[in-house]
């Protein structure tokens, strides 16, 4: 994926297991940290 490309629709899960569409999470500019694990 190149800079400027738009992400496709996808769902992530809250720690409680609730599915949340990425588009609902990101309403404005968002820094997304992508660690290997939450350690």
């Amino acid at each position, binding site marked *: 994926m190149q800079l400027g490309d738009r992400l496709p629709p996808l769902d992530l899960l809250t720690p409680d297991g609730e599915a949340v569409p990425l588009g609902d999470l990101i*309403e*404005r500019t*968002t820094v997304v940290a992508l660690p290997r694990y939450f350690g």
Partner: protein
Amino acid sequence: MLLQLQERRDELSALGADVIGVSKGADFQADELRDDDGVTYPLLVDPEESLKGALRFRRMRPWQYLVPSTLGRYVASVRHARPGKITGDVLALPGVVVIDGDLQLRYRYEGRTLADYPELDEVIAAVAAI
């Protein structure tokens, strides 16, 4: 990186940016980060690593664990890790991206080895440039 982002969250907020964390990691680890380490931004679980897949993040090769710099990072991470079972994806590479409100990718840093993150100042500069 997760704790650094928490420390500078106000600075990012002043620039009009939010912060989230996404990992294949287990839900209980997200709870521990929130409860024990004071991380207040959303932490989301991505069991299928669909976001990294969409971003075309690569996976680490198993032999990379034998590279001294990677091995050193692994030992350091184990020292700081909470006791418990192994979670997440042992071959996943970390990273940071910035996505705008139209879901367009505006900044991308893909780690080349374990715990390889960009300087946070670089991320903040990318946000400020949007």
